[in-house]
Each structure stands twice: as C-alpha cells, then as structure tokens.
C-alpha cells in the first residue's frame, strides 16, 4: 500500500463521514455547514481523479455558492424544525429505506469494480482534434467546441431556473428588488472585507477565464467567482440588488446565450453545421462567446441566490 492509496482512503473516509453527518445532524443549519465542508473535500477528490477543471467548478459551486444559497433557507426555516422533525417516518420505513439504499449502493459498487479493462475512452479522439479548436485544455475544447450544444443548453437551463425563481414573487413585487436590503456599518469589518476582497476577486475571476484556453478554468468558474464577489458587496450593504425590471439587467442575462446561439447559427453557413467554427477562427470565436458568457453567468448566479423580488424600489 503506497502513501497515495493511504491518503485516498483517508480522504474517502472523511468524505463519507461528512456525507453521513449532513444527513443525520439534527439541525439544518449545522447540516448545511457539513455540506459545504463536504463540497470542499469533494474538490480534493476531483484533483485526485485528475480532473482539476471539475475540482475548480466543485470548489466554486459546492464549496461556496450552494452553501450561501442553502444557509439562507436554513436560517429562515429554523423555527419550523421541531415540527418537521416530528414527521420523521417510523422505524419500519427507515429500515426499508436503509436496506433499499444499501442494495442500490452495493449494486453500483459491483458495477464499478467490474468495469471493462482497458476502459473505453474518447481521449485519443479529443487529443487528435484539439489542434482544430485552437485551445490547449481538452475540457475547454469539449465544452466550447466538441459538445458546445450541451453548454448552450446548460446556460438556458440556468436562465430558466432564474425565471422560475422570479415567478414565485408576489404579484405586487414583480420587477422589484430581490432579497432583503442589507444594512451594515459602512466602516465596519464586513464593509472593509468587501471593499478589499471584491476587486481581487474580479481579477481572479477574469484570470480563471483567461487561463481556461490552456489550463483548468472557464467562463462558468470565473462567473461564479464574480457572482460571489457581487453578493459579498451586497451583503456588506455597499450596494443594493438592482430592480429586476432594469433593461441593462435583462440584456446582460441573455447576452451570453444569445451571442453563443448567434455564433452557432453563423456556423451554419461559415462551416456547414450549427455550432461549427471555421478552423482559422475557432479560438477568437470561443473567446467572443466566453467573455459575455462570464458576465451573464455572474449576473444569473447572483440573482439566483438573491431570490425572487420582495420589495419595490
């Protein structure tokens, strides 16, 4: 047994322990903190699996934004927890659930351990066609060129989720500002942090997009960082969430997918297929798509966390 295997075993044990605590902790508030810790360790697992791009996404989503999203709900629902716990299913149901879940997990273990060797892989195909995309990071090439349809649709899903959230607003608040108005001491510690951290975060977010051509990174990961910085500034009370009826806001929300689709449609007559890029133009086109996409992702994620509009001006 090598040190690497020992480390992997320890990591897997920690991940499983955190997952179990997330389920079994009595208070939702503590469960959410467990879940964020779990997301952090999962980023580490992805590094061990050689998927640094995924680790970056997991760090941004699992470690950060999901935590911010869930903790707000946990705090709001805190008073109802005792009543909810009383509705816990009886021991018989729980036993059946445990046995069924264990059986499914056992089946998956058996499937994982009996995977064919050598494993089927598309990596050689990706490597052979990487040069045509002009980027050096194969995951970026898959996301932006080989399977760009997935990425377009993913952004549309993000937008649909936001529309779904907005549609939960009370009628009279439609088009108003989301979330509470955070009031904080403009000279306090939180405002200090927000003032200092958010410019650094914007630089790092842009950097994460920029390196994605050849290193792990991407528009989504960069956009996540920008969204977190925006929300931080909002929580510090330095700025307020914009009213959702603003034109510029709506424009930003659709800019990313719209440009993506426009470039995709242009591919129909430039390169003969939807979302195909002429080889000489592949890299500039990918950049043209990714830069507005990062802004769109940042605004969409920020508003998704801010929630439905709940006040007028």
């Amino acid at each position, binding site marked *: 047994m090598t040190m690497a295997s020992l480390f992997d075993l320890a990591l897997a044990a920690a991940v499983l322990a955190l997952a179990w605590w997330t389920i079994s902790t009595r208070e939702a508030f503590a469960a959410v903190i467990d879940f964020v810790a779990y997301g952090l360790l999962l980023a580490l697992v992805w590094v061990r699996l050689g998927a640094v791009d995924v680790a970056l996404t997991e760090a941004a989503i699992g470690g950060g934004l999901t935590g911010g999203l869930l903790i707000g709900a946990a705090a709001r629902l805190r008073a109802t927890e005792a009543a909810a716990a009383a509705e816990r299913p009886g021991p018989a149901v729980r036993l059946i659930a445990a046995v069924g879940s264990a059986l499914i997990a056992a089946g998956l273990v058996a499937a994982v351990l009996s995977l064919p060797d050598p494993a089927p892989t598309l990596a050689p195909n990706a490597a052979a066609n990487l040069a045509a995309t002009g980027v050096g990071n194969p995951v970026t090439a898959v996301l932006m060129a080989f399977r760009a349809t997935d990425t377009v649709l993913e952004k549309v899903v993000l937008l649909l989720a936001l529309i779904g959230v907005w549609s939960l607003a009370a009628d009279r608040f439609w088009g108003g500002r989301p979330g509470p108005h955070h009031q904080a001491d403009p000279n306090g*510690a*939180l405002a*200090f*942090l927000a003032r*200092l*951290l958010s410019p650094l975060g914007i630089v790092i977010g842009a950097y994460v997009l920029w390196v994605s051509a050849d290193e792990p990174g991407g528009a989504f990961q960069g956009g996540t960082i920008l969204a977190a910085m925006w929300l931080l500034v909002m929580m510090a009370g330095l700025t307020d969430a914009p009213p959702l009826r603003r034109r510029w806001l709506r424009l930003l929300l659709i800019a990313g997918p719209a440009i993506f689709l426009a470039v995709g449609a242009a591919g129909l007559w430039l390169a003969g297929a939807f979302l195909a890029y002429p080889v000489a133009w592949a890299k500039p086109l990918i950049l043209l798509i990714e830069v507005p996409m990062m802004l769109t992702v940042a605004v969409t994620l920020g508003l998704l966390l801010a929630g439905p509009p709940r006040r007028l001006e």
Partner: protein
Amino acid sequence: MSGLIDLFTIVAVSAGAFFFLAGTVGLLRFPDALTRLHALTKADNLGLGLVVLGLLPHAGGLLAALKLVAVWLLVLLSGATISQLIARVARREAPPS
C-alpha cells in the same frame, strides 16, 4: 542544493502541520467560544502560511509561487475579518458578564 531545499520544505511544512494540530486541539479543548476563536486564528495564519512557505520551491515557477502567496494573503484577509464577525455572533450568544 536540492537536499537543502527539501530540508527547508520538510521543516516548514511540518511546522505548519503543528499549528493545524494546535488549532484543532484548541478548538476541542478550550472552554469558551472566544478562546477557541483565538486558537483557530493560529491555524489560519501560521499553519497555512508555513505550509505555503514550504511549498514555494516546488510550485514550479515564479508565477505559481506568487499565486501561492496570494492564496495565503486572501485567507489572511478574509480570516481576520471573519473571525471578528464570528466573535460578534459569540458575544450575542453569550454576552460577557
């Protein structure tokens, strides 16, 4: 020369691990929230700082080394501020008598 660098890494990273140990022990053993917070900040500042210091020669280049230092500075900045916010929560939960 590389032996010397490795020695430097081993000493610095071990010292960093020691501060994480100290932070954990303090978090588990100290009697009230504010003293536990005190123990935690040692792990934040010194533990990660020493680990980063020890990793600098292995980062593979000046840019990567600078980014490593940036990680530490970011954690220092946010850790210091957030500790203060946590202390405020602690005071609200158990006002000093």
